């Protein structure tokens, strides 16, 4: 049976289905991770016994991180508390989104929020979560993009006792902006 041409066009445009591949720590140990992910991991690992605190990460790393609440409700990712000024999520969704008056606590893509939630749930149990994520999404202006990135989530202390989930996201390849459909 022939596929509907419209479906074929969408499939070619979007590519493979959105997916998340979980990785083991040897990805980091073998030096396969991006530089910023490896640096983020190093700080976490060296301070793991005392529960790493946010100031132990350099400013250049904190610029690229996001911090989310240490709790998940339903099937979506935990709410964002802090968004690094040069984080990958800002590159994707824009500074306008990150600084908007309604103080975003999630990305504009609910499907993406659900897709990436299991990694946060795993990190909530106290263990680092490392994934490669392949996803198609769009920004607030409706510009479609394809993303391929690695993501490491670890618990980090932000006060005497309080923890958040800190996430380092590094693109494996640059954002692929898709042409607007006529």
């Amino acid at each position, binding site marked *: 049976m022939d596929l509907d041409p419209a479906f074929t066009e969408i499939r070619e445009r979007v590519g493979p289905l959105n997916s998340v591949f979980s990785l083991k720590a040897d990805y980091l140990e073998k030096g396969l991770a991006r530089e910023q992910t490896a640096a983020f991991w190093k700080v976490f690992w060296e301070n793991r016994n005392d529960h790493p605190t*946010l100031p132990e990460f350099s400013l250049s790393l904190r610029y690229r991180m996001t911090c989310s609440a240490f709790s998940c409700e339903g099937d979506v990712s935990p709410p964002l508390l*802090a968004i690094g000024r040069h984080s990958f999520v800002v590159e994707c969704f824009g500074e306008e989104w990150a600084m908007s008056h309604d*103080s975003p606590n999630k990305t504009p893509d609910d499907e993406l929020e659900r897709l990436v939630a299991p990694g946060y749930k795993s990190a909530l149990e106290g263990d680092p979560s490392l994934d490669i994520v392949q996803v198609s999404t769009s920004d607030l202006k409706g510009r479609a993009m394809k993303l391929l990135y690695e993501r490491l989530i670890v618990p980090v202390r932000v006060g005497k*006792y*309080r*923890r958040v989930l800190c996430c380092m996201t590094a693109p494996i390849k640059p954002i692929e902006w898709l042409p607007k459909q006529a």
Partner: protein
Amino acid sequence: MNFSDLEELWDTLTEARTRTRPEREQQILDEVEKFDSIHLLEDLLEQHFQTTSIKDISETDFDAATTLAWILIRRLRKSESGSVH
């Protein structure tokens, strides 16, 4: 934005007009302390204003800094965070 958000926003703006700068600083520090999240405030200030202390923010940047701080406080209020104990 629902009505309670608007009311809270109005309170914040009113306080900004009637309180002194040290009172506004202390109010923010007290709120952040309630959530045991001082490192998040310090990080926010350092990323945007190159200092970790709200007391060191220049007069020019103070209103912008307090706005960002209150956005953080609102996010903290809306979420539950975990404790290592």
